[in-house]
């Protein structure tokens, strides 16, 4: 491996890992501005032009505040939990293809961190670890509100993970592969019967998409499913006892999770970086693919924000009922439907 190859690998892997947390800064501003727009008020508009410097100011505040560790906590786990949250959020993105495979100066560069054969399973493996960050925070805080938040979170994430995985199994069945680049590749072009419609999984699997996207809200602990931190009942849930940047890490993890969940939705159901009629060539094609991927992801991030400021929080029993009695059967029906489609396609 030459120096250039090594540099390319570093760029492929390290740059997304640095950009994701950096994206959170404007994202918090977007969330607050959109929230204000939905609620018919100005929103943060004092610090810098359009309030753009509000987020940097908040970050300086979070970093310089006193980091309080309450006396009766389990110190090691209390300090470990926030970093676990950020770790899980960041490492999920490693297998998501954010652009096409391009050839520049005789080198083949796939625009993905690591193109592994079990890509989608890896994503689910890492996201299932993110529950530890919340449960451990809840337990180690030695506080009843935190503990309740942690217990809720463990039950919620296990319940919705089931529906989410079953919905995503439909995509795997259609593509015949766990590899995310294969999943993007099979969504290129248009349907043979309807040449104007892109071959996105969204169209044949709209039920799977709905289940996946709704479950994504539960997995990222966003409203209307943010019961682990429901401030009306639990103060701040699992992160009640956290302060300064340890508290900030949970925010960071939540926003990275929103970006990753949006990117996964775009990849699994909306063709990732591909568009019908778009054949990437050279570095310009790579850049265009990256922009298409970013645009699709940004759209779903906006939907996440839009839903948060539109829907009220579910009650806990409603949340459980929705997960087990509605989403899980729907995802199973979707799987059956995709299996029928696959049989039909192979029998022709």
């Amino acid at each position, binding site marked *: 491996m030459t120096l250039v190859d090594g540099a390319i690998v570093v760029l492929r892997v390290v740059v997304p890992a640095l950009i994701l947390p950096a994206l959170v800064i404007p994202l918090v501003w977007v969330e607050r501005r959109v929230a204000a727009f939905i609620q018919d008020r100005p929103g943060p508009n004092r610090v810098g032009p359009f309030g753009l410097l509000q987020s940097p100011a908040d970050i300086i505040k979070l970093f310089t505040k006193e980091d309080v560790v309450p006396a009766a906590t389990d110190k090691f786990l209390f300090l470990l939990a926030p970093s676990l949250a950020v770790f899980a959020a960041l490492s999920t993105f490693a297998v998501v293809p954010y652009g096409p495979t391009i050839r520049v100066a005789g080198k083949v560069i796939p625009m993905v961190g690591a193109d*592994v*054969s079990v890509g989608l399973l890896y994503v689910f493996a890492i996201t299932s670890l993110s*529950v*530890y960050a919340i449960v451990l925070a809840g337990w180690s805080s030695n506080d009843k509100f935190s503990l309740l938040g*942690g217990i809720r979170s463990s039950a919620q994430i296990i319940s919705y993970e089931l529906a989410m995985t079953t919905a995503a199994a439909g995509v795997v069945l259609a593509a015949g592969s766990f590899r995310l680049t294969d999943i993007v590749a099979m969504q290129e072009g248009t349907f043979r019967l309807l040449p104007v419609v892109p071959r996105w999984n969204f169209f044949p699997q709209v039920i799977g998409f709905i289940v996946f996207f709704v479950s994504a809200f539960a997995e990222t602990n966003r409203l209307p499913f943010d019961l682990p931190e429901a401030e009306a009942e639990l103060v701040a849930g699992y992160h009640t006892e956290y302060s300064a940047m340890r508290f900030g890490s949970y925010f960071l993890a939540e926003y990275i999770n929103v970006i990753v969940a949006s990117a996964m939705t775009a990849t699994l159901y909306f063709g990732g970086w591909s568009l019908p009629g778009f054949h990437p060539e050279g570095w310009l094609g790579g850049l265009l693919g990256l922009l298409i991927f970013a645009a699709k992801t940004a759209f779903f991030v906006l939907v996440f924000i839009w839903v948060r400021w539109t829907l009220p929080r579910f009650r806990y029993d409603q949340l459980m009922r929705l997960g087990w009695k509605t989403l899980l059967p729907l995802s199973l029906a979707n799987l059956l439907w995709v299996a029928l489609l696959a049989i039909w396609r192979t029998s022709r």
Partner: protein
Amino acid sequence: MERLIFDAAALVAIVFAGLMVAGRDPIKSVLALAVSFFALAVTYVLLLAPFIAALQIIVYAGAILVLFLFLIMLLNVGPERPDGVRRPVQTFLGSLSVVVFAGLLLGMLRASGARLPGQPEAVAADALPDPKALGRLLFSDYLLHFEAVSVLLLAALVGAFVLARRENAQ
């Protein structure tokens, strides 16, 4: 390099499994087991079985252990305290089984030769055993076993349900 990571991961898996048994606090025991599973997944990756590694994390660390944590936290089980009672019979039987197990392990290692299978460096990423092949095998050669296991799981599910219902009725 691979050998070094493999040995480190194996060591972590064994040490944390030991911590799981020795720990007095149930929550800490579950976490030690989670670390052990994680290290085990690393060894699976190095044994060219990324599919098994992913399942190891999803099913064991991600689902079963989280359920354990959920129950322990819900019932608020505290650390166990030694009750001061000596149990000579149990101690004797325990030590005996450790010796027997160690002997078995040594015998197996002798018989198969303790070395890493495969040639991790030479195999390209594409040549890795594919989840597709595993699925095909599971639904052809091992179909009977697969179905038998699913019936067993269903029976366990129904059994748990019946037990829970009886408790409620009283």
